């Protein structure tokens, strides 16, 4: 049973490693002054939290903006990525490799490589400093994940089901909504979760394209962090984790189960 003990130890080490960086954030968010070498704060307070939820601090506003942008990006990505995923997953065609490469490219090219040029384009289009501009910019890193996961989903989808539905009298829309969509929904949820998270975590693209006017949480977080307010920074950081956690809990069934294999679908 030594192997068992080793495994328990390894599991504990892994759990500890994963949770450790979050702990100081939790403590800091409740601390009033927590200086070296105090192991725990001498005074506990909810001040940082009350400031964080105070309308004037702009945190809740940023939370709403960040969530709104992430949701809009996800929705757009789904609308664009679903058909593209279908094309890549179901059909063979000339130039498929090239198309896949192009769709894959933004996942490998860091945002900084394109953001300067993108800023120039968006300036001329009047999109810098606007929420729609930021959403469009977020589409770049989000789309590869959406398309490739959907391609993996569709590669396991049998289009004969659609033919069957049509032969039973379903319209194209009914076929899509009653047959195709339910079949790909678990995969779509996984892809949507990834899309949401990629947009949710975006820093650089928002900073550049949002031009400071689109104040998402990461920007606000950095702003407070660079001002040395560890307590406020921590409270915001924890707030920033919250929606991701909720999304994860809501979609947990989809993600932990069979369709987790679709993450492997990042492999085209």
């Amino acid at each position, binding site marked *: 049973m030594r192997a068992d003990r080793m495994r328990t130890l390894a599991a504990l080490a892994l759990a500890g490693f994963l949770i450790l960086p979050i702990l100081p954030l939790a403590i800091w968010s409740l601390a009033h002054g927590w*200086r070296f070498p105090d192991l725990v704060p001498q005074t506990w307070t909810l001040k940082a939290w009350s*400031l964080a939820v105070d309308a*004037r*601090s702009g945190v809740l506003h940023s939370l709403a903006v960040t969530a709104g942008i992430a949701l809009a990006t996800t929705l757009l990505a789904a609308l664009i990525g679903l058909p593209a995923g279908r094309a890549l997953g179901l059909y063979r065609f000339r130039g498929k490799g090239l198309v896949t490469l192009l769709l894959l490219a933004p996942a490998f090219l860091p945002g900084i490589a394109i953001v300067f040029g993108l800023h120039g384009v968006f300036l001329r289009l009047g999109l*810098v400093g606007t929420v729609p*501009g930021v959403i469009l910019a977020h589409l770049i890193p989000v789309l590869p994940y959406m398309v490739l996961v959907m391609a993996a989903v569709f590669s396991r989808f049998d289009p004969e089901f659609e033919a069957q539905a049509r032969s039973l009298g379903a319209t194209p829309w009914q076929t899509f909504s009653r047959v195709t969509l339910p079949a790909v929904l678990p995969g779509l949820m996984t892809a949507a979760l990834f899309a949401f998270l990629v947009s949710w975590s975006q820093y650089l693209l928002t900073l550049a394209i949002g031009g400071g006017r689109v104040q998402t949480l990461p920007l606000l977080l950095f702003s407070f962090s660079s001002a*040395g307010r560890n307590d406020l920074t921590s409270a915001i950081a924890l707030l920033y984790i919250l929606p991701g956690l909720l999304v994860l809990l809501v979609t947990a069934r989809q993600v932990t189960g069979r369709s987790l294999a679709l993450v492997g679908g990042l492999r085209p």
Partner: protein
Amino acid sequence: MLRSLATLLLLSTAASAETADGEALKRMTWDQIVEQARGGTVNWFMWGGSDTINAYVSGYVADRLKADYDITLNRVPISDAADVVNQVLSEKEAGVTDAGSVDLIWINGENFRSMKQADLAFCGYTGLLPNDSLINWDNPAIANDFGVPVEGCEVPWNTVQFAFAHDSAKVPAPPQDMASLIAWIKAHPGRFTYPAPPDFTGSAFLRHVFIHAAGGPDRLLGPFDPATFDATAARTWAILNEIEPFLWRGGATYPTTVTQLNELFANGEIDFSFNYDPAQFGLAVQAGTWPETTRSFGLTDGTIGNTNYTLIPFNSPNKAAAMVVQNLLLSGEAQLEKAKPEVWGAAPAIEISRTPPEIQEGFAAIKTHPSVVPAAELAKAALPELQADWLIAIEKGWAANVGN
């Protein structure tokens, strides 16, 4: 939350150029300008790292603007004003001349110089503001921003003067001038450091050493002089390289921001912090970040003071409303409000003697936080700010000769 998102979406699409034409505004009376400003929105880009300053702007200032003028103030928090300068510059380059995204910037120093040189600032209108009369434009420290003439391109907001903070429980008798500070650093290895430029505060500390090396500020005032610079710079690098082994982490690395410096001070890793805005010391103590025993002081051979301003970019679509904001910020009430230590503790940029008696009494009644050295005390030994060219040369020289 949804509503605020909706507002933002609307805001971003309705970038209508209502009062973009500055020349037309200059021909109007103040009342006409206020009328134009009504219902407008001002995107004010400002450093957003202090919750007290944020609260003052988003609370007191925004509330008054809404109530008195129906102006919506949209505070846009940023980490570095240089980003905004760059943004306006990009807009100009892209031909965005009347629908810029920035209406107002909290600014000074090299960022102001950049904006002025590149013709990015809306200029020549400040006389229209009724509260312009409260500003003493004859004071060179107001009329020049880091040596660059303001020339009606920006409006003063606060005055600040550099000060040092120490924990009186640990260092009861801090050094009083630059020479003894340098001696103190050598006698206490690892207990001092300064943020690497281009950090604003670290750069200011460097200028103190530079002025010290020059034997005083006199020869450094005025335009950049390469010969003087080279001679002084050599001595400055010598001093800084000499103390480097005695700095925190043996000088192998420097903090990148004043925040890191403050953090080091808070945790007792170093014995001094410093800031251009001593009010920050009091706020840090109030926030519990710094010990109650924190005290602050200026050097007897002087510390640099400067003024910071608000500026309207040339392509702001809401110039009228931005001017109303500037005028409100200058008012005695607004300046008094932010001077209160519990609000912000910022020193006024207006002549208090020109304000109504009740405002003057208000200022007189202010008790500064015990951790904050009074502005009057600091003012006894004040050094002027060097022109931006000096500043840039010092920063570049440091990177090449010291911080490499």
